[in-house]
């Protein structure tokens, strides 16, 4: 019973992701987020943080994994509330449209 419900949830998420990609909504959301983040200075803040990290580690020893591990938490925290709200609103609208079908 529990397994089947978990299974059903996973199925549902996969279906929603499929729908996002199929309709192109995911690309649109990604582009919107990118523009908003550049606009609000998120990218510049993160870049400054990157410089510190790279100087610490030394230019030759930088790997993508290191960067992702260092940057992603900071990046998540630095997203402004307004951007977050707008993006969530669009996702909800999308879900409501496709749940009612």
């Amino acid at each position, binding site marked *: 019973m529990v397994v089947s419900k978990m299974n*059903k949830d996973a199925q549902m998420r996969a279906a929603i992701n499929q729908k996002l990609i199929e309709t192109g909504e995911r690309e649109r959301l990604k582009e919107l987020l990118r523009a908003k983040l550049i606009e609000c200075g998120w990218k510049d803040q993160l870049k400054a943080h990157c410089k510190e990290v790279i100087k610490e580690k030394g230019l030759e020893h930088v790997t993508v994994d290191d*960067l992702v591990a260092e940057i992603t938490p900071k990046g998540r925290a630095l997203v402004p509330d307004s951007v977050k709200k707008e993006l969530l609103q669009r996702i909800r609208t999308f879900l409501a449209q496709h749940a009612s079908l």
Partner: protein
Amino acid sequence: MKMEEMSLSGLDNSKLEAIAQEIYADLVEDSCLGFCFEVHRAVKCGYFFLDDTDPDSMKDFEIVDQPGLDIFGQVFNQWKSKECVCPNCSRSIAASRFAPHLEKCLGMGRNSSRIANRRIANSNNMNKSESDQEDNDDINDNDWSYGSEKKAKKRKSDKLWYLPFQNPNSPRRSKSLKHKNGFSVCTSASNTLPLLFSSSGELSNSDPFKYSHSTGISYETLGPEELRSLLTTQCGVISEHTKKMCTRSLRCPQHTDEQRRTVRIYFLGPSAVLPEVDSALDDGGFDMADSQALLSRLQWDGSSDLSPSDSGSSKTSENQGWGLGTNSSESRKTKKKKSHLSLVGATSALGSSKKKKPKPPAPPTPSIYDDIN
């Protein structure tokens, strides 16, 4: 597929919210990942720190935010008080007005070039330079044509006659110059001798500014001595457009011998004629009585030093008789056309005295002539 969507619609709001948060986190992670790739590539390619500068030099390029200054810290309206010095008149003019001033001052454009030309011509007259005396560059002008002479003469005499009598020095003179498309010159120079003015070249001249300003001399400013010396060396015909005397040589192609003669008669009296007289002899109306009278006058004037013979020209006194004769006949011809030609000059009055009485008895010789004798 159908079943999945049915189950999707059956989800409650909390589930939907959780899914939305998940999608959002996914998107942010995507962006972070993309950024990480970007930075990593920049680091490995070596252009990540290219836009870095040390803080000292960054201070030099800080953006200034103060009232009255632009972002570079400069005063931005300082050009308003700039002034330029005109190279021509050496006045200082505001920079924004400098170009219009220069245009007027240097004489660019239509009207201002005329103004400038006139100014130059005036200053040349002060110097009375005679360097252009032999200037014959107008010889090819189409304006000059022999055929138009008779017609022009007739038109001129038709019109001139009704102009009011005026003092040559009266201020009204300049006003009357403007009407009757150039025929009114007689009022400016003389009321007594309409033939004084050129009838062939000047009348058909359509461009009044072509040559007159630079070559003319205003005869009003000259004294009798200057006038005489000028008339013995130069053409001297008074242009009807500029009221200036022609400063070219005695053989200048712009004017005829007859015009030169009438000018000399007007200024110097009937004894002063051109040294060479050849063109006007074909006049049919040669009056022996008139020529006799003139010859007797000529003998009386024999000692006059204003004869053109002292000008160094080739022809001398034996031509004077002929010159006077043709002169008088010419004037008489004009007189016959207009019986009320009462203001004719010296020789005309002389020639016509037996036919009718002039209304204001014009003196046979102008005052200059009297002084000389």
